[in-house]
Each structure stands twice: as C-alpha cells, then as structure tokens.
C-alpha cells in the first residue's frame, strides 16, 4: 500500500488518475479507516488531501461559503460567518460522532460515504449546497442531492473526488435547521434525519423552502412536496401538520437494527415539524 500526500489540487488529480490500483481519498478518515480496519476495503493507495492548503479553508464566495474538502467539523463550528448563515448545516456536521470525530470529519467525506443516514447531507441538501468535483477532465459542480446514488455509491467517476462544498448566499430572513433521531444523545447514527431551510418575506410568509430527509430511503432525499406545504404559509399549525404528514408519506424506509419502518415513517414527520419550527425562528419568524 502507498500513502500519497500531494500539496496541490493538480497533483492530487494527477496522482489519483495515474494510480494503477484502487486509490482511496483520505479526508478526515473517520469512515475510511474504520472500513479498512474491518477489511471492507483494501485500497492499494491512500491519497491524503489534507496537505492541500486550498482544501483546508473556508472562503467567502458570491455571498456564500466554499468549504474545502479537508475542513473538519470542529473548524466549521469555530467559523462565525458560517455559523451565522447556516447554523443547521454546522449543527448537522457537529452531530457526526464525538468531539474527537469532530476534529477530523468533513462534509465532503460524509457526503462521499454515501450513507443514507449521513448527518450533514440532509442539511446540505436543504441548504441547496453544491459539490465541486475535481477530476482528470477538470472540475464540475453537482448539487449535493445528486451525489449519492445508492448506499455506498456516488456519481463520482474514476479519478474524481469532491474538492469542496459550496453553500449559497443565505440572504435575509432565512433560517435552516437539522434534527435527527438517535437512541442515545450522542455517538449514534441517525435513525431518521430531517433538515429544513426556508426564507420568509417581510410579512413573515414563507417564500421558499427546502426539506430533506435522511435514513428513510436508499439515499438522502429532497422532498419538494414537503417544501410546498410551507411555502405561502406562516408555518401555522395546519401547515406544520401538512408538512409532517407529507414527510411521513415521502419516507420509504427499511426496517433494520436501528429502527422499524413504522417508527422511521412516523418520526420523519415529527422531526420535520420540529426542524421547521427552529428554522422558522432562525429566519426571524
């Protein structure tokens, strides 16, 4: 096995393209190293992207924020501007594992792991985040919801990796929130996750919303019909009831060791209602 640690994006792309065997990109390593240890993956090379300065930064761009693929949850949590604009995304990232995991885990890694239960992904989807994918043919931008295709599978082509995540301009009277359900208060995988991002007009009417659900389908899903239940409303009880019902209807979960179909379906609605209220409050509603 080889350990590669390029210092520029160009080198990283070239190394990945030229690697003769299976090469795995190492960002925080909190998934990859666990998988390697369990024998679930035996890469020939590991490409550590943390020595690429550009990927370790959070930079302002077009009123939004570009978050490098090697930026850890802990670093995001300490970034005031990001926390002010996208508290739901930061909170979601901070729900990934323990304080120790926070020191390592990244949005890009959480996305590329392609788990339907990934905590940060619903929040990114609700936020309308876009992944910038680097590869031998240059870079391309893909909405986050289009990156995971199935559990453990992404749209990344051979030689490609996610270099950064872009969170768009928040704008005034906007708010987002992410909630997940876990049996323990910490150190757990989401049994259900839900993120809501919304914008209000000056009268407090919701003008735009995005709602996404985690762990209720093979991938994190964007639920436009749930967003529609909020748009044009003040998030009053009937709207929240409709939101909850729509989210439960949109859920098509499996039963596994972490939860039953019935539980996940019901709790998807419960979390949606609760997350919407938090997002609403954050938007000044």
């Amino acid at each position, binding site marked *: *096995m*080889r*350990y590669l*640690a390029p210092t520029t994006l160009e080198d990283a792309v070239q190394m990945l393209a030229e690697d003769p065997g299976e090469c795995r990109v*190492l960002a*925080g*390593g*909190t998934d990859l*190293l*666990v998988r*390697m*240890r*369990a024998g679930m993956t035996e890469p020939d090379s*590991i490409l*550590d992207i*943390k020595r690429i300065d550009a990927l370790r930064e959070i930079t302002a761009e077009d009123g939004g924020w570009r978050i490098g693929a090697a930026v*850890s949850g*802990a670093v995001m949590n300490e970034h005031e501007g990001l926390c002010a604009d996208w508290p739901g995304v930061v909170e979601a990232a901070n729900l990934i*594992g*323990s*304080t*120790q*995991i*926070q*020191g*390592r885990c990244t949005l890009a890694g959480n996305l590329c792991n392609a788990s339907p239960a990934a905590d940060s992904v619903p929040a990114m989807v609700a936020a309308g985040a876009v992944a910038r994918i680097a590869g031998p043919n240059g870079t391309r931008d893909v909405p986050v919801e289009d990156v995971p295709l199935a559990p453990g599978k992404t749209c990344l082509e051979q030689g490609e990796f996610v270099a950064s995540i872009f969170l768009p301009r928040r704008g005034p009277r906007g708010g987002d929130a992410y909630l997940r359900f876990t049996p323990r*208060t*910490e*150190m757990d995988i989401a049994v259900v996750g839900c993120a809501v991002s919304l914008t209000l007009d000056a009268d407090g009417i919701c003008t735009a919303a995005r709602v996404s659900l985690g762990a209720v389908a093979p991938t994190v899903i964007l639920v436009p019909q749930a967003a529609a239940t909020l748009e044009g409303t003040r998030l009053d009880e009937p709207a929240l009831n409709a939101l909850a019902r729509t989210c439960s209807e949109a859920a098509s979960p499996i039963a596994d060791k972490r939860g039953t179909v019935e539980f996940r379906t019901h709790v998807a609605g419960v979390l949606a209602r609760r997350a919407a209220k938090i997002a609403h409050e954050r938007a000044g509603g």
Partner: protein
Amino acid sequence: MSKIHVTTKINGDPVEYLCEPDETLLDVLRDQLGLTGSKEGCGTGDCGACTVTLDGRLVCSCLVLGAEAEGAEVGTIEGMAEAEALHPLQQKFIEHAALQCGICTPGILVAAKSLLERNPDPTEEETRYWLAGNLCRCTGYDKIIRAVMDAAADMRKAS
C-alpha cells in the same frame, strides 16, 4: 509495502519513526514508541480511549494514520503532567475517585484538558456532551463529571 519516514513532535519531544502506510497513529504510539497510555477500546472511534491531540485538536488516534503526523504536534496522556506536578485534572480524578478500573482515564483526561482550554467554565451539560465520545463502563460518569467541574473551578481560581 514500504515504510514511511515521519518526523513529528510528541509531547514536545522531536520524534522520528518509520510506519506502514496503513498503520494507525495509535499503533505507532503504542507498539513503536512505547507510549501505551493511549488505549485501544474499539478501533472504530466509538470509545475515545485512544484520544490524543493532533495540532491541538482532539482526535481518536485509532482513526489517524501514523503518516499523517508528519510535521504535526501530538499530545498524549504521557505529556499531561509536568515532571512531578500532576495536572489539576489528574489530581482531581484521584481525589474524586473518578476512576475505577482506569482504562478510559487517559482518554478522558486528554479530552477534558482540551475542553478546559477552550471553555474554562463549562456547564455540567457542556462537560457531558464534550465527553460523550469517551465511554466509561465503571463509574456512571458521576464522579468524572464532578472531578472535571472541580478542576475547572480550581483552575479558574488559580488563573
């Protein structure tokens, strides 16, 4: 598989070692450098017994490659006391009987120290959440939380 040469700093001391590309920092610390204070309880980042700091950040050393420590500063439990002087947290852990078997203690101390460096006056809830990644099976956490809060109070008075 050829080994990688790593130059790093551990508890302030310059250290060089050779490691396999897939060897974890925890294995390097324990098996090569004799720093067995960091423990392996799970190998998957779920128990916190291997907690160290990497450039000041709290990490599970079982989820860091030895190669990643190149040019970094690593802090382990072995570097917590200064000569004969225990860190206030170490002293309080003994005074409060905050350990029974003691296997989780090094990881919890490293994590608690990091908490108090960032937040000298944490609430009980903040302390509990910060330490949620450090499993203890003996104590029910009660005396651990009390020891951390008490150490924080003493350190605030001293500073």
